[in-house]
Structure formats: C-alpha cells, structure tokens
C-alpha cells in the first residue's frame, strides 16, 4: 500500500495541473475537477490494477470510465502523471490539434480514454457493457465509473441502475461525486436529488459512503467497495466532496463549475498548492 503522504503529494500536483491547464486554456471546469482530485489520485495510484501502455479493450485490467466528462482536466492530469502520455501534452488542453479535447474523446487516440463523455448520463451504461464483457470472458477485474450528482437527473442513469441490479452486475463500482452543486446552483435549488441513498438502495444497489477529500477515508471506502463486490449486487459509493477543494476562493460555490481563473486568481490558487512532482 502506498504511503498516504505520497498520494497527497500526487493530488497536490494534480490540482496544480488542473488550475494551470484551465488557466492556460482560458476555459474548462475547475470546480468539480479539484473536488475529485483526491479520488482519482487514489484510484489510479493505489486502487486500480491498470496498464499505462493502454489497451482499448481493457482485458485483464481494472477499467475506469468518467461519465461526467467535463472534469477532463483532472482525468488528463492523473492519466499523464500515471504514465499514459507525456506531461508536456497537458499544455495543449482545449487548444487546436490537441488530443486533450474539452471533453474526453477517443477520436484523437488519447491513451486512457475508452469512450467519449460530456453529454451526461451515458458513462454508467458503457461501464456496464464492459462489465458484462468481462463476465463473459471470465476476466475478474473491476470496472469503476464516476458520475456527477447533477448528472443523476438524467433518466438514462436510472435505466442503467435498474439494469445493473436486475442482471447482477457485481463487478462494477460506481462513485457519485456528491458535491451538491451544478451549473445553475445547488442541486436542491435546481432539481432536488431527494433521498439519494434510498433511491439507489431501492434500485437494488449496495450503497456505501466516503469522504472524497480525505485520502484515508477514500482508501477505506474503495477497499470496502472492493470487498463487497462480486456478491450479487452493483455497488455505488456516495462520495461527499467539496467543489473546488484545495483552492479557498473556489470552494463551496457552484460559481467555479465552468469558469477559468484569470492570471491573478491563478497565482493565488497556485500559491495554495505545493508543486510536488514538477509542473508540466
């Protein structure tokens, strides 16, 4: 098991990468990206058994799908820092002729991405497809997927939820980034998610909780999820996060969902995030 401090160091660098990518592109989604930085760091640097040489079919490795594709700068940073592609490429984010599209895509052949996402609500279904294929192939690796919380307003999510329970897709661990915010405001002001735990439970899922901005609790939660997998039920982890976590002026508000910091704000943000692995 990796040292918790090492994971925290990676997460700090990932946050710097996010702020710098979004700032250089003058566009992108820093809020959710920062909020899930600890989670995706834990997944790629500790939990998943994955191969940065990258095979599209993901055979005999754990596979991750990002359904809330707008937090692409986070994923690009984690993929790059894990060795999927050179860190310099992060400088091309959202620019012309780049593999690092505004929302993740396979079209330009970026290693680590297996399906496009951005139009919300689709990633869970795709993850189920890979989970079914692994079952057919006798491959005992695990499928992970991340969705936003506002994204749960999409009907397809609940189609997928019903399917996974009925077909006992138990090699699947879905995490919901439960930051309570979406573009137009708090979930509760836009369309309330209601009893989120009860919804998943009555759909037939095993429901777990973790704090997405506490590395120790993340590792505990992901370990628990792995232990509870392959017992006949799909697993969802309701992960509490703070949008903008790590940059004080971006925290606790939906206003930084999809806005880039200006030069001055970027400087303030970077001063709060230690450079641990070297900036790209």
């Amino acid at each position: 098991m990796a040292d918790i401090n090492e994971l925290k160091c990676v997460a700090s660098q990932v946050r710097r990468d996010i702020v710098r990518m979004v700032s250089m592109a003058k566009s992108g989604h820093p809020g959710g990206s920062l909020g899930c930085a600890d989670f995706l760091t834990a997944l790629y640097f500790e939990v998943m058994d994955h191969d940065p040489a990258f095979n599209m079919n993901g055979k005999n490795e754990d596979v991750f799908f990002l359904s809330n594709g707008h937090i692409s700068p986070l994923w690009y940073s984690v993929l790059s820092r894990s060795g999927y592609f050179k860190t310099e490429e992060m400088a091309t984010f959202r620019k012309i002729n780049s593999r690092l599209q505004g929302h993740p895509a396979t079209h330009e052949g970026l290693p680590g991405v297996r399906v496009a996402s951005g139009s919300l609500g689709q990633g869970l279904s795709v993850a189920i497809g890979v989970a079914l294929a692994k079952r057919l192939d006798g491959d005992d690796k695990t499928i992970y997927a991340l969705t936003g919380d506002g994204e749960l307003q999409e009907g397809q999510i609940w189609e997928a939820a019903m399917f996974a329970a009925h077909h006992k897709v138990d090699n699947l661990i879905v995490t919901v980034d439960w930051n309570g915010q979406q573009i137009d405001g708090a979930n509760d002001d836009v369309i309330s998610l209601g009893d989120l735990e009860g919804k998943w439970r009555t759909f037939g899922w095993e429901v777990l909780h973790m704090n997405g901005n506490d590395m120790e609790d993340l590792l505990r939660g992901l370990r628990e999820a792995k232990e509870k997998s392959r017992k006949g039920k799909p697993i969802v982890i309701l992960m509490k996060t703070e949008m903008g976590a790590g940059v004080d002026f971006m925290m606790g508000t939906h206003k930084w969902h999809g806005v880039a910091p200006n030069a001055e704000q970027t400087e303030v943000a970077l001063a709060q995030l230690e450079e641990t692995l070297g900036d790209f």
Partner: protein
Amino acid sequence: MISNIVSEGKKATRNGFGDAMTELGQQNPNVVALCADLVGSLKIQQFIANHPERFFQVGIAEANMIGIAAGLATAGKIPYTTTFANFSTGRVYDQIRQSVAYSHKNVKICASHAGLTLGEDGATHQILEDIGMMKMLPGFTVINPCDYAQTKAATLAIAEHHGPVYLRFGRPGWPMFMGDQPFEIGKALPLNEGSDVSIFATGHLVWKAVEAVKELEAEGISCDLINIHTIKPLDEEAVLDSVLKTKCVVTAEEHQMNGGLGDSIAQLLARKLPTPMEFVAVKDSFGESGTPDDLLKKYGLDSSDIISAVKSVLQRKK
C-alpha cells in the same frame, strides 16, 4: 433482365435478420445481441435459445441499450442492438452520436419496422427520418436491404466490417426476389440494364421499382435499375456510370425526401454531374394507420408513382 426477376413468395425482411442472427451465433463467438423488449418482433428467439449468455434483455430502455453496446464493443464484442427503427435512432440519437459514432465503436444498430409499411400502428412508430439521421453521423455505414435474402446476407456481412452500422429493415411479409448472393457493403447491385432513365431504389421500394420497370420496358422505355442497399458509403461510381448513360434519374425509397437516398444522390450529382431528377419518397409529412399497401398508395410510394416519376423526368431530359 427484368423479366427474370420474380417473386418467390413473401417473407419479412426482419425474418432474414433473425435467421442470420441464428447463423452468426454459431459462426462468431464475439457476436452478442441486445434487445429492448421486442424479441419476438425482431425474430431473435433462436439466437437467444442457443446462446442465452450472449443475449442481454435491457427492457424498455433504449438509451441504456446503446451505451451498454458501446461498452461491449470497447471490450471486443460485436454487439447487435435490436428494436424498432424509431426507437433505434431518434429516441437515442445523442447516445449513438457520442458513445458509438464519435467513439467509433463497432456497434451494429439493427432496426425493424422502419417506414410506412409498419402499417396499422401509425405515425408514432413509422419512422421516415432515420436514414437521414444516421447517414449524417461521421463514420456510420447505413444499409437498407430490399428483401429476406438480402437482409440475411447484410446481417452476416456487417459482422465482418469493423465500425458502426445502421441496418434498417421492416415488418411486413415482402416479395423475395433477390435469391442467395454475397453481400458487399457499399456495392450497388444492377438489376436491369437500360439507357433511357436511371432508377435507384432502396429497401422495400426496390420491389416496387421492379414492378414499375416491367411495365415501363413493355412500353418501350429502357430502364437502368440499380439496387442501392448501402446508402452510406454510396457507390458513387455505379451512380455516375449509370447517369452518364441515361442522363435522368428517379430515386425510390420508403423515407422522407429530405435526408434520404435521393438526397444523397442529388448531392453527388450536383457536385459531379447535374442531372434532372425526380424523387419517389414521402414529401415532408407523417404517415398514419392503414395497411402497408394502402399507405404506400396514399403517400405516393407505389409502382405507379415510380412510373409517373419516370415519365415526368423523361420530359425534362435534354
């Protein structure tokens, strides 16, 4: 020779699909099937009986079906999604666009009950816009076979093609006239050689065109009849070769004029060989309940409409 093309009884194109799925199940272990609560309509019962582990019932949840298919394809399977054409396209267009087309997944979207000949269920189910929607998606192959045997052959052929495919077929019993033959994606099939007019037909209307050509030839009008089973990629060479010879065109299809086969051919000819053209297609309207025959007559898709279109385009020919 047109006189050699005769109906050897009727069978629905969807039966050709179902029978091919049974064969594919035995031939190709990577082929898997999904269905949104229409197993009987899609004729895949035998596939399911033979390979229950390779079939996924998704219930009435087509968006989820498309996403799951994209995932199965990612992992190396060859998923065939099955439901009515309406629910295979318009209902799930964004899912197909992002998770299948843009992501270039090897998914086969197999759609029955396309067009007016779905009949009595009416316009809610009679999709006439699907070819247009699907051909607009970059990288998609769009196929509309004309009879039982051609549908069967197409269903087998698309398993060997790596890339997303839309395969469109229909509900009613329909004349079988093509016989067993190999299916080559993107290769138009000449059915009758002629010099006065080119007729390009797809799907069920190929048979209507055969009937029309028999009458026209009897009247001394020489028709170049070509079955365009693959609307995208279009066999441009076959179209241009025919039109160079005849210098006028009629297209026939069970689809809106906007976005259909005729539209693809008109676009090609406008770029390469501007030519007088008539379209036998639905002219910007919805269908309604009725028998397939009554509907084809009322909406101008009968053999008599093809004959009128030929006569009218011949008048315009320079």
